[in-house]
């Protein structure tokens, strides 16, 4: 309460940059590309946006359908077979999710997506990063309004957080650290194990948003000393509208319920558990565990192919994020000297995510220190094929070459003019 206005102003400007980065990019895209549905005889674009959402695996749909058609009982009904079979399915799904992350089934709470939760504790300092997902950042802002103090840690140039900085930021009144495992924009993998051990040693709860990581890299909540973990169904080839929250039992993590009411899910998230959706989530987790190695191998090969081809054909391409500590399936490339809007318009035959990002924002004066650069995010997943990657790469290379020919900046660079030495005049 004391320094709320001051801290909010300071944190607001820091927070503004990261959420602005995400929403700014999105609004830029939305205004330029007119959204319309495909015509009947028009060809469908290739899907290369696996970080946004994933198609359902046929095996998941197959597991879900019986519960949409015949086994429609409420899992909380205790008096008849419909309820019992539904409950059995729900508990089986719980075990499948728990097995994937090395948890106990009693520690899994089904939710309606990867939502962040509210915590009430005597200690009211929270640490998170500037590159968290928008939902986490928004929740933090609401928490600030409730009297919590939130520190938004900056990330290094390669997208990873600085462990030393985190250690210094942890105070005696820090109750929670929230850092996502794999970033959905650039694919960097944070050092979760080290962060977990650090937090445990300082008696601070550690929450990680593992929506992009679960089922793609091996995660064990006990190895990494994670206390809370968010899982999202539709990022791991499962259904949309369901997720799970891992809440550690030993040592006990106390959280406030998000939804009050009938007391389902240990009182943490009331409301009838949607059996078909959780069955789907469980099946998706089991499949992910079986296919983890195979998928990882395929995705790595395809990602390398994509990057090698692009980098060998066109110069001045930057891959954002640390080259080693990353998930290969999320390739975020920036093409220098290319006019952003034009590249956006040309992307209609492949479903990609793209946007602008701001580098070096001066917090005190609010100036943009560097020019905005334009990035394209290629998402590679379980179902991506060689042909899709080749097609995408070919088209992108063509477009970038064409746009560069039209770009005056590119001409200047080709002539050997150093752009930094140019004095830009304002009109």
């Amino acid at each position, binding site marked *: 309460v004391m320094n709320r206005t001051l801290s909010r102003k300071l944190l607001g400007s820091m927070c503004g940059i990261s959420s602005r980065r995400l929403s700014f990019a999105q609004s830029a895209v939305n205004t330029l590309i007119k959204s319309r549905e*495909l015509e*009947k*005889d*028009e*060809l*469908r*674009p*290739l*899907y290369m946006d696996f970080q946004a959402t994933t*198609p359902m695996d*046929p*095996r998941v*749909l*197959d597991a879900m*359908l019986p519960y949409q058609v015949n086994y429609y009982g409420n899992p909380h009904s205790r008096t008849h077979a419909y309820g019992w079979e539904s409950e059995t399915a729900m508990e089986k799904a719980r075990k499948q999710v728990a097995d994937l992350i090395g948890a106990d089934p009693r520690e899994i709470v089904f939710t309606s997506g990867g939502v962040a939760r509210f915590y009430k504790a005597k200690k009211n300092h929270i640490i998170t990063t500037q590159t968290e997902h928008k939902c986490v950042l928004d929740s933090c802002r609401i928490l600030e309004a409730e009297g919590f103090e939130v520190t938004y840690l900056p990330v290094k140039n390669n997208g990873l957080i600085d462990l030393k900085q985190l250690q210094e930021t942890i105070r005696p009144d820090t109750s929670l650290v929230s850092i996502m495992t794999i970033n959905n924009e650039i694919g960097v993998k944070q050092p979760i194990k080290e962060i977990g051990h650090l937090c445990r040693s300082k008696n601070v709860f550690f929450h990680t948003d593992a929506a992009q990581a679960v089922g793609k890299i091996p995660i064990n909540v006990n190895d990494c000393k994670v206390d809370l973990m968010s899982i999202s169904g539709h990022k791991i080839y499962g259904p949309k509208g369901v997720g799970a929250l891992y809440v550690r039992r030993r040592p006990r993590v106390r959280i406030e319920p998000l939804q009050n009411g009938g007391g389902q899910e240990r009182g943490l998230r009331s409301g009838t558990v949607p059996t078909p959706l959780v069955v789907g989530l469980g099946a998706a987790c089991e499949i992910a565990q079986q296919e983890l190695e*195979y998928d990882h191998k395929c995705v790595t090969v395809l990602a390398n192919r994509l990057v090698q081809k692009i980098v060998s054909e066109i110069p001045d391409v930057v891959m954002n994020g640390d080259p080693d500590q990353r998930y290969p399936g999320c390739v975020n490339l920036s093409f220098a000297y290319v006019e952003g809007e034009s590249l956006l318009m040309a992307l209609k*035959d*492949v479903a990609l995510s793209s946007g602008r990002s701001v580098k070096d924002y001066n917090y005190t004066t609010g100036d943009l220190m560097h020019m905005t650069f334009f990035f394209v995010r290629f998402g590679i997943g*379980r*179902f*991506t*094929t060689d*042909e*899709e990657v080749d*097609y995408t790469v070919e088209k992108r290379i063509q477009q970038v070459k064409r746009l560069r020919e039209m770009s005056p900046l590119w001409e200047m660079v080709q002539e050997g003019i150093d752009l930094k030495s140019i004095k830009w005049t304002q009109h």
Partner: protein
Amino acid sequence: MAASSREHVLSLYRLLLKESEKFPSYNYRTYALRRVRDAFRENRTVEDPEVVKELLNRARDSLALIQRQVCVGKMYEIQKTVVEQEEEKSA
């Protein structure tokens, strides 16, 4: 026994591939074909009859699953993807 079991495995393999070809969705079709081939290739050297029996059961379940999902896919068909048109052109 070994000879018929080998034929059995091969016939299951061919059936799985034949069914997988029928997926209307480009991504599901290519994935199923690739996964079936790689799974059979990976388990080529398995000797233990118990393990073989288990794997064959899984293969049979997968076959039934693929047949059902092919049906579902056919019920809700949509346009082809850009890459498929190129395949048809070159074929």
